[in-house]
């Protein structure tokens, strides 16, 4: 089975990316509509997270696929850097969507949620981590930043589940998605540090990522539907 995965890994990566980009597209469209109606900042930041995830996977796995040929495809180093940047931004936005109420006023709406003072800090942090990773030729800065982000997200989502689990049925799955995200980032870190990018573990991470995105898709489509 693993041999088959490895033999077909490029096409499988492409399918994997198309699924994730499609899921992100659906989530962004749906949440954008909810945001436009409600102007709710939490929905806005949640939407931005999936916008960045979608862009990241699109650049890394679709624009960076060897099937495009060497003249069309983006260089692996550049697509990898852009991918890491978008993934970090997405993680920051996802965490921020859970804590924004403690930082911003509910009634204040920024003209742009992608370019404003607070979000510039995220951009700055992501760029610094990418540059540090480039200088040291390591992925550890990215992995550790996301382990840190999702550790917080796990705690917050668990707290939300305990406090409001009876009101919001999806809070349990949200917590599971955050926990799986943390596990995926921890596995990424371990596979780079100790297991020399072992293909079996990487395949497992891809599967975990798919489960996470499908969980969010389920939540967005099911929970946010108009009855």
């Amino acid at each position, binding site marked *: 089975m693993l041999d088959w995965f490895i033999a077909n890994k490029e096409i499988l990566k492409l399918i994997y990316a198309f699924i994730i980009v499609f899921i992100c597209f659906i989530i962004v469209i749906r949440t954008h509509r909810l945001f436009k109606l409600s102007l709710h900042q939490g929905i806005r930041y949640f939407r931005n997270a999936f916008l960045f995830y979608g862009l990241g996977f699109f650049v890394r796995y679709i624009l960076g696929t060897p099937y495009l040929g060497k003249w069309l495809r983006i260089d692996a180093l550049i697509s990898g850097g852009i991918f890491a940047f978008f993934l970090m931004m997405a993680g920051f936005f996802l965490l921020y969507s859970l804590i924004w109420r403690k930082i911003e006023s509910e009634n204040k709406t920024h003209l742009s949620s992608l370019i404003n003072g607070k979000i510039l800090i995220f951009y700055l942090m992501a760029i610094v981590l990418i540059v540090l990773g480039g200088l040291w030729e390591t992925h550890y800065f990215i992995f550790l930043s996301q382990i840190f982000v999702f550790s917080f997200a796990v705690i917050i989502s668990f707290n939300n589940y305990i406090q409001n689990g009876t009101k*919001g049925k999806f809070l349990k799955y949200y917590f599971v998605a955050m926990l799986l995200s943390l596990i995926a980032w921890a596995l990424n870190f371990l596979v780079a540090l100790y297991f020399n990018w072992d293909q079996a573990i990487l395949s497992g991470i891809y599967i975990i990522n798919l489960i996470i995105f499908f969980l969010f898709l389920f939540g*967005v489509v099911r929970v*946010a539907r108009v009855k």
Partner: protein
Amino acid sequence: MGKKRERLEVIKDILNVVRQNRKVKPTRLLYASNLSPQMFKDYVEELIRKKFVQVELIDGKNKLFSLTKKGQDFLMEYKAIENFVENFGL
């Protein structure tokens, strides 16, 4: 003492009053919204800015509020928005 209403809930309540009355005077809306005058002013300004309600001037001075298409859409989707915010801990 009752639980403090969430912002979205207050908006829904105000819009519901406007919808039920089709056209409503500010004083009646203030009374029905159960808000302090300052909070009411802030919310109404926000609703006008977001184009959820529109203002008509009668005899050049008296205001009447009515619901816009966007306000009607909001009320239709309010439950979905509320569910979404609750279920995703936003």
